[in-house]
């Protein structure tokens, strides 16, 4: 119904109507483009997010080489190293060393876990490995 009305209307319209139509369409388009661009620019570079007991304690870009010591009040610690776009724990005070033995991570959804120290390092905006969660 809408389709059949528009062409007939266009012929017998006033200039102002056309202007209004153009402005509204322009606004809609601008809004759409704006939202898309916003979505694109808010997607950030890959980062390693350090969480202690579920709370964020820091985030580090995977593109900058760095070594971070995450020391807690009780003296326990983990050393996080970022190199070649990957994050890994190179040293830790925990007895089991599961976090140290874990391979470096870089992909979206991958994580390093140290249970004794209640530490999780999560990758955000990482390379898409097509995985939502891992089983181990």
């Amino acid at each position, binding site marked *: 119904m809408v389709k059949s009305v528009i062409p007939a209307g266009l012929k017998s319209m006033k200039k102002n109507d056309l202007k209004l139509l153009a402005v509204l369409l322009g606004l809609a388009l601008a809004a759409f483009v704006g939202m898309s661009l916003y979505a694109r620019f808010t997607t950030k570079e890959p980062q390693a997010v350090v969480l202690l007991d579920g709370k964020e304690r820091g985030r580090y870009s995977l593109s900058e080489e760095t070594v971070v010591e995450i020391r807690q009040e009780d003296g326990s610690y983990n050393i996080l190293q970022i190199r070649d776009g990957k994050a890994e724990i190179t040293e830790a005070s925990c007895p089991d060393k599961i976090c140290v033995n874990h391979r470096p991570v870089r992909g979206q959804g991958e994580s390093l876990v140290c*249970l004794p120290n209640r530490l999780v390092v999560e990758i955000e905006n990482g390379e898409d490995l097509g995985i939502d969660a*891992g089983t*181990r």
Partner: protein
Amino acid sequence: MRDGEISFPYPLLYLRELRCRRMKKICRAGILVAVVIVFAGLVCMQYRDQNPQRYEGQFFDCFDTVTMITGYADSQQDFSEKLELLQAKLVYYHQLYDIYHTYDGVNNLKTINDNAGVEAVKVDAEIFDLLKFGKEMYDKTEGRLHIAYGSVLSLWHEYREEGLRNPLQAKLPPQAELEARAAHIDIEKVILDEQSSTVYLADAQMSLDVGSIGKGYAVQKLAAYAREIGLKHALISVGGNVCAVGERADGTPWRVGIENPTLDSEKPYLAAVGLSDGCLVTSGDYQRYYEVDGERYCHIIDPETNMPPQYFASVSVQAEDSGVADALSTSLFNMEYAQGVSLVDNMEGVEAMWVGKDGEIRYSSGFKVYEEK
């Protein structure tokens, strides 16, 4: 032509003009409607892209591991509230199935163990049902899944903890002591009384340890609870014990990777499985273990030999029920491939993937690796 200007006295012209004006009104209304529809459509497209959003959350303190939950919610607050509810629920199960700690006002597995040879303990239905399920799985797996194996498991636990604290002094439990402990693992002496909802261990030196099924059983209950509180699409992972609630919001299955047991390999996952309302559990020797004289001894102990089994690096089981998947992954880890694959092929809706110590991968007949469509 202006409004109010009437072409008089020509009735025909007037009529035509009237029709023309009406047409214009309809046209204007039509254009307005069209613009509104286009506008609304564009807004809707954006809205659909962003809502509901995908969130992730995590918490500790349950089953000695970290729980990670991925789900879709209307807002961060909405998701956080749901996450808190889920945490409270899992803490409840953790306390019930805990064999190391006592909690006020809760009769848990430790209460039952402490009263071995003394008296029957009245328990919550959630404990009773778990133990009943454990006994069923004992029969199905010919004793490879053994909930009354606590006396032997606790000895290994002590030696492992000590070995991790002092790696240079790490020792294996003495064979004689293992055998002495293994004299107190008769599952028939776990006496369940349905009528009174009580559990009695008829051997003072025996104890329950549900490490191989408790977590899986609890995760299944947690998934049901997630649906109850309105999480229609979620992925729950309690220490890699993964359970899917529905599929992803886009209607495709959740993709769950099976981790590569070779930790120094570049490849993080060996395969991916698509889950819609199903579970995937892996038992492996590469995460929890200790070393004695350079040899690795993992946390899973085979009731046949009282030693860590040497068959595989990991076994993953896919099943509808997380309790079944958990129980079977431990059992399959404890038996040869031929025996395991026949067990799996005889169970409906259960599939498995075995990874050998040499990296060789084998599958049950219906195992499906997820492929992007």
